[in-house]
């Protein structure tokens, strides 16, 4: 049957499914309403439902991490510590760090958006290994339980970096549970990454060549590579640390012949790439949102796509810039400093290309776009201040001060979190089929961003003046900056709490979103929302690159040119696909 091609001002990658009428919508079976039992959720192998499972718990853990940091910020109101004892404070910031990193930043976008959107973007029915996908969620929960248990029995006070010999010998807190938690959640993120890599390689629908992959898929692919390669090293490192702790024998403990720097090397071999695990998916989201809300092609598809892969590769060669002052060899420090400068370039390219993308666009400012612009503003600062720290000479002064804190919060919160919220608001209509309040969502975005500036700009000043990180008490000359920080943090708090309300409200009172509320080109938008059981009623065939917002009715033109855009048109797509294969010059022409 020849598919009816609607009249559009843009060109989607494939023929959009006909918009169901009210009546059809009522009757339609989708992934949410086919079964309401609890078991149908706990035993689901549907990537969309698994994505929502991740969403629920990632949000819970985010709230916990936020609670921990609110204690920290309140305590810092006074130079002598307003509310916490010294060790309570140490446990609070450790809880904040570990929870936010291992239970939120790392899993949230791969777990929620990666699971939900990637298969839809490439026109697959599901992930390559659906059962494995569910398993990785359970594994993640299991790991999370160890973290919670560790908190329940008195917490951990080593900081999220677990440097021995303090962590292994002098800290009498629950390092072993936390170590198990990291090991297990790490295993989960490996499984997810494995699934995504294989899915991207093997599950793409006809016509979805590497050159037509949405940039979010590219970003997730790069992220997964890092997770596959880096996470196991962390796993084995924490294992050794746990052995040292429990047996009381020396592996990293110098008093027993070990070398504490070895731990730092192996830890940062994971944990520096880990910051790219956190930010790359965010960059992918931004590429989607920016193009859609400015109705433009991405500026320099190849550059943006390959810069993701570039970051993934080069990001492995810079871990030593965390150890400039730790006593590592001079020459290694130089190499690491140099390569760090190189890895800054791909990020710069991305920012410039995004900026160029909105140029001459037709920009509208719904919540996702506001978050995306927030990302651009904040991530730019985050990236630039990274240079002060990558420069060995200035890092001597700034290392381990609030300058570092501010820098990585600008990238991790200002970058990753803003991107996450952008993505959540962008795909929420697709996930739930409902639209949230326009006013409240914009308000929340503005609050979050402005609060963010107020929180972290003062920390740069405090840091340059030498205020060390992880200090519950500090020299009173820093008090003003800390008060400003705490004020900003409270504003952010409101900004992050609002979505909880209007998003949940949208489920009940929100108006129907329809298949494609943003008039976007990606495959995921060419199917009804919420999507049917297997995403597409018929396997989509891709005829166009993503982001063809400037070509009106490309599909009709194609049809007019005599091409038969129907189900049975595989030969054409087939030839096309193979034709474009080699030319994409991509890792592993699938």
């Amino acid at each position, binding site marked *: 049957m020849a598919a009816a091609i609607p009249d559009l001002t843009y060109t989607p990658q494939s023929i959009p499914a006909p918009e169901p009428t009210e009546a059809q919508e009522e009757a339609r079976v989708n992934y949410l309403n086919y079964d309401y039992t609890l078991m149908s959720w706990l035993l689901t192998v549907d990537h969309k439902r698994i994505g929502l499972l991740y969403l629920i718990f990632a949000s819970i853990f985010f709230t916990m991490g936020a609670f921990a940091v609110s204690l920290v910020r309140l305590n810092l109101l006074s130079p002598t510590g307003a509310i916490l004892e010294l060790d309570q404070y140490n446990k609070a910031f450790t809880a904040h760090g570990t929870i936010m990193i291992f239970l939120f930043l790392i899993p949230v976008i791969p777990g929620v958006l990666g699971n939900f959107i990637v298969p839809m973007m490439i026109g*697959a*029915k*599901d*992930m*390559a*290994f*659906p059962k*494995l996908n569910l398993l990785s969620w359970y594994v993640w929960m299991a790991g999370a339980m160890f973290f919670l248990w560790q908190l329940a029995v008195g917490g951990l006070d080593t900081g999220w970096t677990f440097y021995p010999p303090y962590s292994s010998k002098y800290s009498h807190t629950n390092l072993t549970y936390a170590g198990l938690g990291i090991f297990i959640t790490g295993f989960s993120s*490996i499984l997810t990454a*494995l699934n995504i*890599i*294989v899915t991207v*390689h*093997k*599950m793409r629908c006809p016509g979805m060549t590497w050159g037509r992959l949405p940039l979010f898929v590219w970003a997730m692919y790069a992220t997964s590579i890092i997770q*596959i*390669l*880096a*996470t*196991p*090293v962390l*796993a*084995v*490192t924490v*294992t*050794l640390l746990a*052995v040292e702790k429990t*047996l*009381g*024998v*020396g*592996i990293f403990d110098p008093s*027993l*012949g*070990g*070398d504490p720097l*070895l731990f730092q090397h*192996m830890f940062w*071999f994971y944990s520096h790439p880990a910051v790219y695990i956190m930010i790359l998916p965010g960059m992918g989201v931004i590429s989607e949102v920016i193009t859609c809300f400015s109705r433009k092609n991405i500026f320099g598809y190849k550059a943006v796509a390959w810069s993701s892969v570039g970051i993934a590769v080069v990001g492995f060669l810079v871990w030593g810039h965390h150890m400039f002052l730790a006593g590592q060899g001079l020459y290694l420090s130089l190499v690491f400093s140099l390569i760090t400068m190189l890895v800054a370039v791909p990020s710069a390219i991305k920012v410039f290309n995004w900026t160029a993308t909105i140029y001459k666009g037709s920009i509208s400012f719904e919540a996702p776009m506001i978050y995306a612009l927030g990302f651009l503003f904040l991530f730019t600062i985050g990236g630039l201040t990274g240079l002060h720290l990558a420069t060995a000479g200035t890092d001597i002064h700034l290392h381990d001060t609030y300058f570092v804190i501010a820098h990585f919060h600008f990238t991790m919160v200002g970058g990753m979190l803003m991107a996450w919220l952008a993505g959540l608001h962008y795909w929420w209509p697709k996930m739930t089929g409902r639209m949230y309040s326009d006013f409240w969502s914009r308000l929340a975005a503005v609050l979050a961003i402005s609060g963010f500036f107020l929180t972290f700009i003062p920390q740069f000043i405090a840091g340059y003046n030498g205020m060390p990180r992880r200090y519950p008490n500090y020299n009173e000359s820093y008090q003003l900056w800390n008060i400003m920080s705490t004020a900003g943090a409270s504003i952010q708090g409101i900004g992050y709490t609002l979505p909880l309300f209007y998003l949940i409200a949208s489920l009940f009172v929100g108006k129907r979103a329809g298949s494609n509320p943003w008039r976007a080109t990606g495959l995921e938008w060419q199917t009804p929302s919420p999507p049917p059981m*297997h995403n597409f009623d018929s*396997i989509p065939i891709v005829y166009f690159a993503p982001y063809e917002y400037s070509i009106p009715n490309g599909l009709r033109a194609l049809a007019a040119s005599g091409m038969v855009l129907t189900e049975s048109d595989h030969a054409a797509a087939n030839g096309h696909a193979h034709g474009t294969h080699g030319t994409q010059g991509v890792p592993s022409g699938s």
Partner: protein
Amino acid sequence: MAASTTGPVAHHFDNLAQQQTTVRMGMWVFLVTEVLFFGGIMCAYTVYRIWFPRDFEAGSAALNVGIATVNTFLLLTSSLTITLGIRAAYAGNQKALKGWLLATIVLGSVFLGLKAREYHLDYQEGLMPTSKKVVVYEKDDEGQEHAIERSVFAINVERVLHEEKFDTAGVNTQRVQLFFIFYYAMTGLHVLHMVIGLGLLTWQLILAQRGFFQHTSRYVYIEVMSLYWHFVDLVWIFLLPLLYLAGSHTFEQAIHQFQHALGMH
């Protein structure tokens, strides 16, 4: 097309070929993770081996190289049997398939049995890393007795090295203990992988019993299993020189140790 288009295809795949290649790739990507996993601990080992070569040789000399040698051959053979298993599955010869799977399981189990025995011997010899200390009395030049606190491990390892006729001059027992930590960690992780592998093999044997492999196209699951199993073998191939062959050994010693392990003589 090698894989026949008969046989079930999971709901989310278009056809068999896609499924086969997908399954294969999944395992390969997983093995990448495994390589980095063992690579990490081997890197840590290498650092200390470079720092303390003498002490690590001493530690290696205290190991039971006899069992290790036998185990090497067992594992290699199991690699052979599982490979033959693939062919059987491919040819649809259920009986042979079950046979080869069983053979692999047996060989693997014997390996683990011997390994357990080895750990047991190490335990008996007191080669367990520990922070325990005891007070010993040593005579000084004037023949006066002095109470000295010494690590339990140090005493044991010195005894064992003495039995092995290893010259302990300039050997720091604390670093020998470091070697033993790596010995237990690396072999332990390897054993863990073996156990998981045996579990999977058993599961496949049950499946074979149930006739799951009637569809010859499902030979790919055996093949993927074999990839994992070969990898476990591959790790051992590196553990052998790193841990067991680092110190000085002789064939006689190996044979003697193996007999000792089995309680022969």
